[in-house]
């Protein structure tokens, strides 16, 4: 393969993993924007989505129904998680929230280990289309489907947040919760909706990820979850375009590092980027430098 083609392949790899990170990072950033909470259990929703879709596929349902039911189940899980674990702690300190989030993450991982064992399970690549041939390189459908689905969802999400009343309400709550209440916005509903959307996107990420990288296991969500969190911080946590930008940058850095530097040190390099970023520009690339609210 020519050097240029190899570079092109890495570019495509980067876009693919970047779009998965973006779907996950959106959930982190939206929840943080509204509830001022890092939901560390968010990555595990990917795993939940992967297992639910695997079980549903076994029942012989059509692929689109499997996707739909998985998305709904994960959205419900996200809302329940907020109501049961986070809502009672809304006035608690950040550290209690963080500990709770880590607790939920372990709970989900262990629960699924109990049900499905820790052994990896093969995941059928059930969403396939013919590959695209560009000269001497062939792009398998896994790659372009992930990219197209993610970008479409991001465009829809952006339209929703920018144009609809509910989207304006979400932005209002994220900026000033008290003032939002004075507008007659139901903050609880807005927070639930945010968790539902974030978890739905994570479910889709779970399906797309498993579709590309079979097999699946109960801790599969934690690494992409952490990477997506890094992407969200990189872009500026709370910012939607920031999360997308951060995710694609991270995806690219990963693909290029793997190909040209070292796949062994991949994760250390990624974490180094996070630390450097936090030192150089704590608010992230597109983050606003907000003072803590009093």
């Amino acid at each position, binding site marked *: 393969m020519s050097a240029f083609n190899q570079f092109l392949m890495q570019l495509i790899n980067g876009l693919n993993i970047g779009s998965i990170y973006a779907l996950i990072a959106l959930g982190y950033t939206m929840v943080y924007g509204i509830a001022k909470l890092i939901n560390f259990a968010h990555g595990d929703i990917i795993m939940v989505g992967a297992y639910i879709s695997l079980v549903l596929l076994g029942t012989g349902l059509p692929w689109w129904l499997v996707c739909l039911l998985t998305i709904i189940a994960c959205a419900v899980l996200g809302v329940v998680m907020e109501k049961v674990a986070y809502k009672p702690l809304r006035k608690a300190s950040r550290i209690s929230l963080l500990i709770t989030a880590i607790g939920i993450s372990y709970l989900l991982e262990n629960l699924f280990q109990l049900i499905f064992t820790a052994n990896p399970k093969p995941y059928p690549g059930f969403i396939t289309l013919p590959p695209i041939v560009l000269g001497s390189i062939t792009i398998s459908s896994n790659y372009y489907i992930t990219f197209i689905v993610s970008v479409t969802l991001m465009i829809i999400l952006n339209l929703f947040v920018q144009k609809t*009343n509910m989207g*304006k*309400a979400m*932005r*209002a709550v994220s*900026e*000033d919760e*008290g*003032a*939002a*209440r*004075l*507008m*007659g*916005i*139901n*903050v609880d509903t807005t927070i639930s909706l945010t968790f539902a959307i974030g978890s739905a996107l994570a479910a889709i990420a779970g399906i797309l990820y498993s579709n590309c990288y079979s097999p699946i296991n109960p801790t599969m969500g934690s690494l992409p979850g952490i990477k997506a969190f890094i992407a969200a911080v990189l872009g500026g946590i709370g910012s939607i375009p920031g999360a997308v930008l951060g995710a694609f940058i991270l995806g690219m850095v990963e693909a290029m590092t793997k190909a040209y530097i070292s796949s062994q040190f991949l994760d250390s390099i990624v974490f180094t980027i996070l630390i450097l970023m936090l030192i150089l520009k704590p608010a992230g690339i597109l983050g*606003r430098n907000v003072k803590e609210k009093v």
Partner: protein
Amino acid sequence: MLKVENLYVRYGMIEAIKGISFEVNDGEIVTLIGANGAGKTTTMHTISGLLKPASGAVLLDGTDITKVPSHKIVSMGLAQVPERRRVFAEQTVEENLDLGAFTRKDKDGIKKDMEEVYELFPRLKERRTQLAGTLSGGEQQMLAMGRALMAKPRIMLLDEPSMGLSPLLVNEIFRIIKDINQRGTTVLLVEQNAKMALAIASRAYVLETGKITLEGTGEELARSEQVRKAYLGG
């Protein structure tokens, strides 16, 4: 229309409001004056449901709203222009006005009211696509008022609308408050600018460290020795 009965509000151990009672009748402008830390904002937040009182009642048209969630209070016809305006800085002027109408479903009515707000504040119309955070202090105050009007309230609460504005703008803001009242909206106005507030108020109350110490018509209080000494500079 609005009646506050023996209201107590606490922040942890601190009792900020110690048993106040007052009322605002249909069509009135009632003002609540008091120094820094008297408990004016606390009272306003409690009426709007952002704070829950330790005891006492807030009656809106006879119904106690102290247990009603804040978002429902807005649809019952009570809107507030909060202290320091609190416009949504990262949204445009027009988006802020849309948010003011969040509880309403009548699209045509909303459109009509937006035109009315733009008529009342032509400067907002010129800046409709501008981010609210880039407006001047006076313009932000106008936006906060326009935003509250978009809820089509029967009673409007204003918390220190003249804060930080030039004398010229203060006059303008008070003229508009009077105008809003004459178009049929009842007004509860909190102010430190006692002189201006008493001049437009039908009735007034003086709040001192969580207690109401004086009440009367705007004129009466403007003449009262106690008020002149404490709030009108002698």
